[in-house]
């Protein structure tokens, strides 16, 4: 009697100790990404706008019905008609063509600036957060100093000092944007580095460099992607603002901001001159924000299972 009981116990014990486990079905990461990302209408809208934007920027010369730079004083301030779909400005340049060429400026400034600012800002923030002490002191105090000035004012002063032109606009906006990225990255690093897996990683002999860039950075990416897409919107707005104020893209270059500026004197007679670029800015900024949201939801491993 007792023997059978002991026997059963032994069997159960062996079964337990051998740890027979069943693997759950494997879900493809890519499939989940597609599902979460493409499922939502607003994200799809953002994506479509984004694709159209890229297409427009690349094929601007083919798409533009007229030369965006050549004025024709005889056709100045023409209201929209079949030849000039959105009318012409004071110098007789086709608004639609300038709008199309303006996408190049907007995208170039947006992407290049955000790439520069995010790279420098993230590295600085990562270093400050990871090493702490003197490194953090020096980096973050410099960032704080820059942050004392409102973003646009600082960019304005820099752009004014450097002079106009697309290159200087990019430099000015990048420098103004770095502290924002550094700040967020610093905070993220401080919290991520306290995780058990960082200690586990250190216990496996990983170097500081490896921990910073292979383990902390990927964990900060979901937040960073959202910040980057949001900043893309902000940047396009900021570039427009600088151009509007006349220290951004210099004439005859086509930029939405300067188009609004050129047009606002005729707001009552030819409102489309300002409204068209204004609407373009609005739609693009909105689209970027939607994409940012969608990307975060689709990429964040911590949201897996929830979405």
């Amino acid at each position, binding site marked *: 009697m007792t023997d059978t009981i002991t026997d059963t116990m032994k069997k159960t014990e062996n079964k337990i100790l051998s*740890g027979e486990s069943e693997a759950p079905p494997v879900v493809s990461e890519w499939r989940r990404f597609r599902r979460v990302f493409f499922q939502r209408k607003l994200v799809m809208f953002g994506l479509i706008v984004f694709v159209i934007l890229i297409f427009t920027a690349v094929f601007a010369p083919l798409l533009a019905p007229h030369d965006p730079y050549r004025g024709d004083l005889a056709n100045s301030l023409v209201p929209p008609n079949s030849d000039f779909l959105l009318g012409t400005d004071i110098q007789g340049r086709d608004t639609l063509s300038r709008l199309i060429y303006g996408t190049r400026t907007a995208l170039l400034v947006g992407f290049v600036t955000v790439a520069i600012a995010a790279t420098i800002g993230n590295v600085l923030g990562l270093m400050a957060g990871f090493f702490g002490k003197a490194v953090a002191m020096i980096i973050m105090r410099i960032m704080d100093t820059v942050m004392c000035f409102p973003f646009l004012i600082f960019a304005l002063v820099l752009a004014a000092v450097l002079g106009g032109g697309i290159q200087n606009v990019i430099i000015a906006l990048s420098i103004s944007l770095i502290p924002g990225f550094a700040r967020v990255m610093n905070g993220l690093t401080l919290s991520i580095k306290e995780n058990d897996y960082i200690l586990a990683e250190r216990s496996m002999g990983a170097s500081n460099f490896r921990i910073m860039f292979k383990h902390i950075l990927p964990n900060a990416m979901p937040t960073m992607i959202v910040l980057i897409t949001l900043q893309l919107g902000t940047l396009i707005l900021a570039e427009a603002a600088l151009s509007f104020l006349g220290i951004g893209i210099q004439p005859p270059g086509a930029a939405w901001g300067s188009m609004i500026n050129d047009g606002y004197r005729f707001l009552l007679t030819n409102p489309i001159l300002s409204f068209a670029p204004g609407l373009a800015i609005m739609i693009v900024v909105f689209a970027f924000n939607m994409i940012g949201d969608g990307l975060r939801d689709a990429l964040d491993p911590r949201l897996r299972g929830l979405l």
Partner: protein
Amino acid sequence: MSVLLDVKNLTTQFNTEAGIVKAVNDVSFQLNEQEIIGLVGESGCGKSVSQLSVMQLISAPGKITNGEVNFEGRNLLDYESNSDEMRAIRGGKIAMIFQEPMTSLNPTLTIGRQLTEMLELHLNMTKEAARERAVELLKQVGISGAESRLDDYPHNFSGGMRQRVMIAIGLSCNPRILIADEPTTALDVTTQAQLLELMKDMVSKYNASLVIVTHNLGVVARYAHRIYIMYAGNIVESGTTEEIFANPQHPYTKGLLKCIPRLDEEKGRKLVPIEGLPPNLINMKSSCAFAPRCSERLERCLTEAAPPLRDIGNGHYVGCFEK
């Protein structure tokens, strides 16, 4: 058996606002080749800190102030914490498994990536070779469908399976020593038993030694060859597992044994908890830290400095006055 790890007079202290906390106070222990030792004590008695000190993973305000960690003819404390030598030892020669399987794996990297990373780092394997090895390791720790599971993320795994992965990572580079810091505390009993069994098998397969840090005497009873009992930063008793269970000498060890049920005891014995709480480690006196809670306390226990470990034969040492 030859000595693999010889820790002598290790002292680690934390300088806090309130005073100095000697989390590890003059601790010495040895680990032989292919041996399993258990380090047992309550929360906050310095078990984990002593092991982290061996790996030099103590971060500010903690500081190793004294001692030697002799391993393969070198004193590890001679190296800077962040030196290349120390990094080669961590993971390569001495690996560690942590308490919380749910948070010990990076959630943004696949299991495969985390497994191969160390192989590429310590053994200079190519990506393909490392992947093959990773599959093999996952199979060895009992994860079915290892091939496809390499591309899964940690959240696809249960706690027990993650700890299996941690064991695989820990043993991936063929370390001499595996330190398991409360490896099963966060898991339920059946999984606990599975993992301990797995660890024992894996360690013997790789000819490594194992340090099990735990607060649970039951966990080490079955697996450890020798046991060290820690209290308030000190080792108060050490000996073979048989000696500790059959012939406990220190009142603290006796107390620990009295508060767990045993199968081989007479019916109707009441479980007796140890009265009081572990002391606050800030600015400790030099007298025996356990004395205030001790049921066999003598006058001298409170006035004199705590006695050093005393050899009572059979490889049994106890840090208590002779009665």
